[in-house]
């Protein structure tokens, strides 16, 4: 159970500025919820690292080796000489290798994305439905009233159209009820 102070902005720059102020105020790193990706987030909230490239890389490596092995091992298991070619022969097997490299790379990238983006969402988290339309929300997790007040002040000062407190479960439920 977590409480959030959510500030809704109508354009991304002020939301980003507000988020920067929240962070600077030592209220932790707020979450930005937006209808479009916001440019310059990393300058304000710090660099984000992603493991996706590793997934892609190792996926492709595994794909390459399993591709060649699939072709070579099955050819040896099922010995059918064709066309005067060797049983293990490179040009065609490299094509199989190539395709499987890409297939595994794609699948691994997706896995990496899902894992690193915490999808599919299993736990309830803060969600602001307006942010899917045209609002840029800054959600600050606040454990106590003091934090909440400070966050609210910062957000209002930054020019938020609306600031409200949300409880995660409640918020999620509300969203569900409203839409469902």
């Amino acid at each position, binding site marked *: 159970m977590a409480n959030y102070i959510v500030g809704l902005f109508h354009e991304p720059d002020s939301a980003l500025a507000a988020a920067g102020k929240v962070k600077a105020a030592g209220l932790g790193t707020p979450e930005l919820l937006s209808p479009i990706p916001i440019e310059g987030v990393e300058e304000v909230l710090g660099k984000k690292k992603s493991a996706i490239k590793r997934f892609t890389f190792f996926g492709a490596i595994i794909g390459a080796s399993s591709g060649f092995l699939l072709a070579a091992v099955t*050819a040896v298991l099922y*010995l059918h*000489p*064709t*066309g*005067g070619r060797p*049983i*293990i022969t490179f040009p065609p097997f490299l094509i199989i290798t190539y395709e499987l490299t890409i297939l595994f790379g794609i699948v691994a990238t997706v896995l990496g994305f899902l894992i690193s983006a915490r999808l599919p969402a299993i736990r309830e988290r803060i969600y602001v439905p307006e942010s899917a339309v045209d609002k840029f929300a800054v959600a600050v997790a606040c454990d106590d009233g003091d934090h909440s007040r400070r966050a609210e002040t910062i957000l209002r000062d930054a020019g938020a159209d609306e600031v409200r407190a949300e409880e995660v479960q409640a918020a999620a439920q509300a969203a569900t009820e409203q839409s469902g």
Partner: protein
Amino acid sequence: MNIFERFTRGWQKYRRPGYYEKFDYAWTMTVDLDRCTGCEACVTACQAENNIPIVGDKDIAKGRQMQWIRIERYWQGEYPNAKLSFIPMLCQHCDAAPCETVCPVSATYHNQDGLNTQVYNRCIGTRSCAVYCPYEVRYFNYRDHHWDAPLEQQLNPDVTVREKGVMEKCTFCIQRIRMAKDNAKDDGRRRVRDGEVQPACVQTCPAEALVFGDRQDPQSKVSKKMNDPRAYRVLDELNTHSSVVYLKKVDADG
């Protein structure tokens, strides 16, 4: 033998072109074009031996004839100097067969006897082998063929009847080769004697234009025929290494 040695040995083995170190037999047919009269006896003999269906006039009109061995005819010159030559065309059982590599399910492959085999049960009917074959000797079952009763009683029980959607072609009468090998084994011989096995077309050829045998045996009739200076392969430039060797027609005036 440690794993590494086993691996390297296996590697060398499987990297050998054509895989086989040596064929058990290298069945070969020679066709003497100077003898061939184009009488088409081989065509009917093949049809009788291998249960090749009668496709009927409607299918022939669509160009779906089935003749594992067919006679091709080529005219040269114009009247009154027109000449006609015949050439029997059948599966060449190429050692470097283009049709074998293309089959996605390995329904056609090269066996230890040097035969290009077609596994009907495995065939899924992509027909790509027929495209890749430059000799156009693969025939496809465009439908289920039937024999008007009681013609089916004549079907050779040693040869299967192919269903629709399956590619088929000359087998060098593999059933006869099998029989000859079995007989040789029963007699305690290691190898089939030259002339002991003949495909139906060779057996019936009235002009004795066709000769069949094992070219690995230097004493066999085919080996001798292959050493004839007239020997050549059709479409040799395609590097198919075919097992059917033609002997040039003699043009005595040319």
